[in-house]
């Protein structure tokens, strides 16, 4: 994979949800080592935009391209998407869950990566606990952990700090900054000031609301 000049470019995007125009005429670009922070009121299309990038939502108009990425694979296969739903099964335990997603998302049977990701999100001591017993913040951390377990260049995070306490928010921000420094890209929707180093803001909703 040639990631030297990786760049996410969106041109003249529009999004339709249930016949309602959520946004239109949206263009932006994110280069390596850059974060794009999406802000805007409820319903302004932050989540929809993230899902469009991940290939989970139809693009009503315009284009999204991951320039310099692997042209043989869809954008969805080159990004991590952490949305509102945490994709966790109550009857599987923490380590099993992460092991499964690591293997499924192309990381192979990599115990070291799984252990590292659990450790980074302070979940190592909970490894054998069934997911059903986790608190909301712990569930959030577990679903975030897969972005570390399998290396993918672009992270799409939909309000990643929801349910996280101060210490874990700081932990997540550190990991995001490390990802950026090592040449990754992040598009995150949030209401908080994340304090990412090279962050550009994109405020959604104003032109449509007007």
């Amino acid at each position, binding site marked *: 994979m040639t990631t030297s000049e990786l760049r996410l470019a969106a041109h003249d995007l529009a999004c339709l949800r249930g016949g309602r125009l959520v946004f239109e005429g949206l263009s932006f670009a994110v280069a390596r080592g850059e974060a794009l922070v999406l802000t805007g009121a409820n319903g302004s299309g932050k989540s929809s935009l993230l899902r469009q990038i*991940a*290939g*989970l*939502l*139809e693009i009503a108009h315009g284009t999204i391209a991951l320039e310099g990425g692997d042209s043989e*694979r869809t954008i*969805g*296969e080159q*990004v991590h*998407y952490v*949305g*509102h*739903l*945490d*994709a*966790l*099964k*109550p*009857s*599987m335990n923490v380590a*099993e869950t992460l092991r*499964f*997603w690591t*293997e*499924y*998302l*192309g990381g*192979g*049977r990599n115990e070291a990566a799984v252990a590292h990701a659990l450790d980074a999100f302070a979940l190592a001591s909970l490894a054998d606990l069934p997911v059903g017993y986790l608190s909301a913040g712990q569930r959030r951390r577990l679903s975030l952990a897969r972005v570390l377990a399998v290396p993918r260049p672009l992270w799409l995070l939909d309000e990643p700090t929801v349910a996280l306490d101060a210490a874990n928010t700081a932990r997540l921000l550190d990991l995001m900054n490390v990802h950026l420094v090592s040449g990754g890209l992040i598009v995150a929707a949030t209401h908080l000031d994340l304090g990412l180093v090279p962050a550009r803001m994109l405020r959604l909703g104003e032109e449509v609301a007007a």
Partner: protein
Amino acid sequence: MRRAFLALLLRDLRLAARLGGGGGMAVFFFLVVVAIVPLGIGPDKALLSLIAPGMLWVALLLAALLTLDRLFQADFEDGSLDLLSMGALPLELVAVAKALGHWLTTGLPLVVVAPVLGLLLNLPVASFPALLLAMLAGTPALSFLGAIGAALTVGVRRGGLLASLLVLPFYIPVLIFGVGAAEAASAGFEGDAGVQSLLFLGAVTLGSFVLGPVGAAAALRANLR
């Protein structure tokens, strides 16, 4: 890709085996339905052995339908399906893995307990091998065709009924040829009607291996977007 396929299949088997996974539900339902038939019909042995193949197949079909609606729905509701569509595995193969998992946790156990239930219904022991063969050949089609209905109704709350209505017409050939094979076996394989039924059953199943995953993946794509 093979690794992702195996990982998904193993996960589904594991989930089915655990509490709340519903792995034993179909078998239990099958048992209950067949066990109450003699109570309802009465202890007429000749009558029971006459209706046994049909009863077994109808109960098997209903048991398979019972567990079908959760095939994709659980993954759809908790967001897993989004992630499953973002791996290297095409949705068609995701559907194959899930349908295969459904067969291994539902269809296969039903086939295994069928002889015991056959005894309850006074089915001649000589016809057991043919019945089992027909069920082995026919039950995969229930899972693979059922996957289409499950995928179509993935976003519908209590979609099980709708899925059943959609899928049932496709199950009819399996039922007809399955009962045909079993009845021919009970009659001691006079002529080659039994073999023909078995061959048709095999053909339906092979067809479902292609149609099921392609149809299910198309339905999932439409529902995901």
